[in-house]
Each structure stands twice: as structure tokens, then as C-alpha cells.
């Protein structure tokens, strides 16, 4: 799809003037954000810029103090994680939100178990898990191994696979490569591209600009809770983005 076609498409999810405070700390101030299908929006910013708070709002974990969330043109209150999921917003949290004692299949279907009458249908879940992981080219030692026995990259992959399970429209990833090595980072970024190419909107939160330049279509900068610039990833230079993150204007230019 061409860039024009994507921008003409109505946003799958929009934030309008969202603010959130933790006591005296203003973590988000009047933030707008649009996410469409077929695009990767990178949200970048220094530590403490408010990125995870933004993820909290999108995922229904945090209800913002002010502002609105618009899904498919309708204003909505995302008051619980289950509700956000139901509206097609799937989140991979910074800590992955896995249960270490539960096995891979149990984690993949956590909260959305397949049932057969009143009983869980383990066979159907295992079959579906195998299909999904194969499709994403994810390898794990055993589908019935507790997640505690997996490597960091494998856990990340399980968390992403879980987010994709209910066929969401928007995938939100909070620092997906922060704890990974070089190879695993490349694998996760490939996964992100594959997800985008199959039509999802992706919000990629990161403070790693190399990752961002590798996969993002659009870059949104947060600084001290406020929007501080928005860039086309193909055009913007590394220096421009760093300047927006740190608030120091590069020589001869100013962030938009």
C-alpha cells in the first residue's frame, strides 16, 4: 500500500488530548496519537518520558485523567485490559506479563482459554498454539515447558504470539528488544514487519533508535510527557530525532 493510501485510511485508534498524572508527576500531557493499519508508529523518548504510561492508556490498564480514546470513530473508555482486547488492541507489556509457572500453551491462551463445555480444551489450544508459533517461525523447546524455562527471546516471542492470538487490529509493543541480544532483536524486528505486512497497526515503543529506523514508518517523540515532534521515518535524520528527544535543537534546524 502506498503512503498516501495509508494516511487516507481512518485511524483504527486515536488518542485525543490524553493526560495522566501519578500524584504530582505529570506523566502524559495533552497527547494526540493516530494508529492506522499497515503502519508501524514508533514512540520514542528518554527514560521517564511517559512511554509506558501511554502504553498503559492504550491497553486499558490506566484510565487517563483527561482526554479521549477513539476507536473506529467512536469515543470509548478503555477501563479494563479485557475491554481493550475486545476492541482489537493487543499489548505486549515491557515485563511481558507472562506467568512463569504456567507452560507455553497456558500462557498463550491466558484469559482467553478455549473451552469444551465447562472444561478447558487442551487439545484445541495446543493445536492452535502450534499453528500460530509455526506461522511466526517461533521455536520453543516444548509447548508444555513452563515459561520459566525459556530464554529471553523465546519469552518475548511467546508474548508477541499471545498478543496476536485474538486477531487484533492494533499491536502495542513496549520496549520489545530492551533485554535481547543482537540475533534475537533482529528476529523480533522481523516479526514486527511481518505483523505490519499482514495489515495490523503497530505501536512500537522504544528508546533504541536503531530499531526504530529499521522498522518504523512514522516516529513520534515524547519528551517529559508531551509530544515533541513527529517524523516520517524515511526522511527524518538520526540527528533530528535525537534533538527532539533531548530538546536540544540541531544546528540550523528545529523540530516540527
Amino acid at each position, binding site marked *: 500500500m502506498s503512503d498516501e493510501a495509508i494516511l487516507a485510511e481512518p485511524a483504527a485508534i486515536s488518542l485525543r488530548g490524553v493526560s495522566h498524572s501519578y500524584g504530582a508527576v505529570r506523566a502524559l500531557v495533552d497527547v494526540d496519537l493516530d494508529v492506522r493499519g499497515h503502519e508501524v508508529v514508533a514512540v520514542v523518548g528518554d527514560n521517564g518520558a511517559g512511554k509506558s504510561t501511554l502504553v498503559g492508556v492504550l*491497553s486499558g*490498564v490506566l484510565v487517563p485523567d483527561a482526554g479521549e480514546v477513539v476507536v473506529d470513530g467512536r469515543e470509548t473508555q478503555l477501563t*479494563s*485490559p*479485557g475491554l481493550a*482486547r475486545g476492541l482489537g488492541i493487543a*499489548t505486549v*507489556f515491557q*515485563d*511481558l*506479563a*507472562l*506467568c*512463569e*509457572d*504456567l507452560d507455553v500453551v*497456558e500462557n498463550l491462551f*491466558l*484469559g*482467553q*482459554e478455549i*473451552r469444551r463445555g*465447562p*472444561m*478447558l480444551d*487442551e*487439545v*484445541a489450544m*495446543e*493445536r492452535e498454539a*502450534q499453528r500460530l*508459533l*509455526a506461522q511466526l*517461525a*517461533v*521455536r*520453543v*523447546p*516444548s*509447548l*508444555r*515447558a*513452563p515459561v*520459566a*524455562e*525459556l*530464554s*529471553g*527471546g*523465546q*519469552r518475548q516471542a511467546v508474548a508477541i504470539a499471545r498478543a496476536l492470538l485474538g486477531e487484533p487490529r492494533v499491536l502495542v509493543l513496549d520496549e520489545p528488544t530492551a*533485554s*535481547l*541480544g543482537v540475533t*534475537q532483536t533482529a528476529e523480533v524486528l522481523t516479526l514486527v514487519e511481518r505483523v505490519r505486512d499482514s495489515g495490523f497497526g503497530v505501536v512500537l515503543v522504544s528508546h533504541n533508535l536503531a530499531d526504530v529506523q529499521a522498522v518504523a514508518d512514522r516516529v513520534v517523540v515524547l519528551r517529559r510527557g508531551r509530544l515533541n515532534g513527529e517524523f516520517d521515518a524515511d526522511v527524518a535524520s538520526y540527528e533530528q530525532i535525537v534533538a527532539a528527544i533531548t530538546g536540544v535543537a540541531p544546528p540550523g534546524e528545529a523540530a516540527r
Partner: protein
Amino acid sequence: MSVLRTPAGTVRWAGRDLGSWPVLVALAMLWLVFQAANPNFLSADNLVNLALQVAPLGVLTLGVVLVLLVGQIDLSTGAVSGLAAAVVAVGLSQQRWPGWLAVLVAIAVGAVVGAVYGWAFTRLGLPSFVLTLAGLLVTLGVQMRVLGTTGSLNLPFESWLVRFSQQAFLPDWLGYLLAAALTLTYPAIRLVERRRRAAAELPLEPGRDLAVRTALLAVATLLPTWYLQTNRGIGASVALFLLLVLVVDLLLRRTRWGRSVRAVGSNVGSAHRAGFAVRHVYVSAFVACSSLAALGGVMQAGRLAAANQGSGGSDTNLTVIAAAVIGGTSLFGGRGSAWSAPLGMLVVGTISSGLTLLNLDSAPRYIVTGLVLALAVTLDALGRRRAPATGR
């Protein structure tokens, strides 16, 4: 691709999750030692008694397992069982209630205590350790009030509760029938599942494994049934306890509620973000625990045909927690099974019964139980530290 094709479960055998094996080994060793010290220990008569002693406390332990699984603790199950014993005794001997009513009221009292715990824990955020300690004291006080000035009540010997708990045993044919039914149901279920797995092109466990496990199950059910039935047989209260274990096991492993219990105990934040109603899960665990404690207290009152100020007192509160941990349920939440209750309580009961046969007082009983508990907690802590993520 690809997902490594390993039959479900095999990795765990090779890995560190040893399941119930440590407690089974401990049990076998204890039995050999006590048998060597006193040839009466493994007599059918003594084992029938042991089973009758273990059943009521095992029901308490089953409740404790649920609370431990959600990562909390209940220090007051003994006190709640004592209160239930008092309620049932007053109902039967003073109020002349019909038996079913007295039992229902006693269990309802337990459920109310659990509901209060659940409410205070989820709404006020009180730590369960302190909360149930406070509950223990309050419950003890109420138990004394219910018993009145004498402080002790005898149950009418002709009441069905006493007969059920003391003299009712499964007829021999029924014991064999149930053992055979269990032995046949297991492979039947596994074969149906196997066919569905084959249809779904999932890895299958080797048929030989299933045959071996079925054979082991046959021995584990038919042999004790036969041996106990050379004496009085399987007590009705023992059968009730085992039925409860089977039901709780099924709920934990095969229902969404069971999954939510393990998820909450493993990582409550993750469970919440996965969409589970975390508060309900906690409340259900506390209510189930206190209700089971009350039922255990009723069974204990029936077995002793009496309730007094000492019912469910002294070390009961702690013994059942020890039993749950010895049986293999983690103190850290998220790991454990319903079978920890019978296995752990059997270990604790064995130590008590074995030392009593040797005419020893309570001192060595406390010490040995404490050492076994320390061993179990060590295994638990090691299991928790297992497999730090590699390949980061």
C-alpha cells in the same frame, strides 16, 4: 519452523519439576523405618486407623492448598474447623437440629469467615498473614462462646454424623468397584484425548507409557483397597476426602477457574492484564479454604463424637500448612496440586502414628515433622530458582 515435537510432559520429567516423587519417596522411607521399629505399624488395623485420622485434617489441607496456590496463606483453618465443630455439636446435642441442617450451618459459618477474609484482603488490602491471624483469635473466642460454660459437648452417639465418621465403611464390593472404575476411567479418558490429538496432528505419548501408568494406577488403587479390606476397610470419611481431592484436582487442571487460580498465584499483575477478575479469584480461594476447613471440623467432631475448646486447637493451624507444603504445594504461589493434601497429610499422620506406636510423647513428633517440613521447603525454594533464563 519448527516447534520441537516432544510429547507433552516429557521435558518436565527430564527437568527439575519432580512432581509428587519426593513425597512418595519420603513416605516409603518413613513406612520402612516405622515398620522396622514396630511390626504393627503396617498392620491393616493401624493403616485403617491412620486413614481415619488423616481424612478430616486432609480436608483442611485441601483448602490450604487453594490459598497457597493463589500465593496467600490462611493461618486460621484449625480455628475455623474448631468453630464448625462447636456449631455442629450445639446444633445436634442442644438445639436438636436435624443432622443435615447442623452440618450445613457449620459449613456456612466457615464460608462467611472466608468471605470476610476475601473482602478484607481485596478491598482493604490487608496482608493475608495478619488478617488470618486476627481471624484465628476472633474465631477462637467465638468458638468458646458457642460451646458455653462447660467448654465441652458430646455428640449423640446415634447421630448419623458420628456413625458416618466412626463406623461407616465402604462395603467390600463397592471399594473394589470404585478402585476398578478409577483404574479404567483414566486410560479411557487418555485414549479419547489421544485420538483427538492424533486428529489434530499433535505429538502423541508412546502407548507403552500409558500402559505403564495405568498398571501403576491399578496397583495404587486395588492393592490398598484389598489390604484395608482385610480389616475394616475404607472409611466413609476417607472416601469423602478422596472424592473431594478428585473434584478439586479436576477443577484446578481442567477449568478456567483453576487456570485463574494458578495464574494469580504465579503473577497477579500478569493475570490481571490477561483479563482475569483477580479479586473474585482471591475471594473464591479464601471462601473455598474456610468452607473446607469447616467441613473438616465437622468430620473431626463426628470422629471424636465431641467438640471442646481444644477442637482444632494447638498446632492444627500450622500442621495443615506444613502438610500442604510437604505434599508439594509451593509457599510462593502458582505451583502445587490437590494431591498435595492427601500425600502431605499422610506423611504428617505417619510420623504421628508411628511415634505413638513407639510410646513416644509429642516432643519427637514436633521435631521430626519440623525437619521434614524444612526439607520440603528447601525443595520448594530450589524448584523456584530452577532454570534461570538462558540465552539472553
